[in-house]
């Protein structure tokens, strides 16, 4: 598997189309998932995936010979680009002056697992604002740290923590009382 990946990278460095498409096949699904969860739009998510992969394949200095490291880099690029797309939709993450205590994991988990109604959770997520959903996805699904989210959104870590906490509270509220 690792040897296959090295062959793909070698082929991409030589701009061989077969290797470039194998590179696409390898990474596109994961990048598409990350972009879609943030954008909730399949065409925009496709655009993000293609832009990221085109950038890396036409600037071969960005290629990494470790598959895991490459995926991390590509995923970060896809997230940054998706956030840019959201900003074009006028979704803005601002600095928050008030600091909310972080919602404990037990409470959010308990609230969801107690009912474990996936359909209701879907409705709750769908009803959230793009801003709240975005920050939740970055934290819970993409497993980014507060500092990483702070870099991506260009706001202070304390603002990230507060907004994350508020987003979780809103999700629980929507989930319970919908």
């Amino acid at each position, binding site marked *: 598997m690792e040897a296959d990946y090295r062959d793909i990278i070698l082929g991409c460095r030589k*701009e061989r*189309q077969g290797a*470039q*498409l194998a590179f*696409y*096949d390898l990474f*596109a*699904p994961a990048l*598409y*998932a990350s972009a*879609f*969860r943030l954008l909730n739009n*399949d*065409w925009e*998510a*496709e655009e993000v*995936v*293609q832009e990221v*992969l*085109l950038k890396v*394949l*036409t600037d071969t200095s960005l290629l990494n010979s470790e598959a895991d490291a490459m995926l991390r880099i590509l995923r970060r690029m896809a997230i940054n680009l998706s956030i840019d797309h959201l900003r074009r939709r006028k979704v803005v993450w601002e600095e928050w002056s008030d600091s909310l205590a972080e919602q404990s*994991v*037990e409470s*959010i*988990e308990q609230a*969801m*697992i107690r009912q*474990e109604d*996936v359909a209701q*959770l*879907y409705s709750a*997520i769908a009803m959230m604002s793009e801003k709240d959903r975005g920050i*939740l*996805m970055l934290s*819970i*699904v993409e*497993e980014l740290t507060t500092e990483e989210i702070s870099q991506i959104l260009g706001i202070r870590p304390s603002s990230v923590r507060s907004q994350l906490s508020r987003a979780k509270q809103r999700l629980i509220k929507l989930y319970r009382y919908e």
Partner: protein
Amino acid sequence: MNKKDNTALKQLMEQAWPVPPQPSGSRERFAQRLAQKRQTSRKYWWWGIGSAVGIAASIIIALFVGQPSVGTQTEELTLTEGINTTIAEVRGYYKAQMWSETEYILELSKDMKPEMQAKLMAEVTQLTENPDSVALTILSEDIDDDRKIYYITSVYMAHLRSLQYIHQMLAENKMASDKQ
């Protein structure tokens, strides 16, 4: 937040917010864009540099040799929808930079003879307006939107480079005359 809790929550969220398959034809569109990018990046890199130097050189020659320049019709680029939003952003970005270059050129040329300065500024104005009419022509061509955006960006970039070249030449001349 410990890892175990995060994982359970992550699974629940992924289950509740599933990702649909990629739109059909994604891979084919990607292969097409990749092939286009390879062709155009080679061709337009040289085209961009060539035209920037060419335009700037013709202005300098026209200015100092006194050759009359060919007037071009300036058209207002009206951009309203779809692809045009992206082009409006590209135009806005380059126009802003072109105007700063124009300001520098105006400042550096204020010691010139009035008629020479007028001629220079007429050329500079034309340089800032020309890309709009070229962009209109490209927009009307039967090529895909990505290509249009790429070509139009190259045109604005080439004209900006010409202005930067003029700015640089004037700045060097001024430094040389200040030393004397």
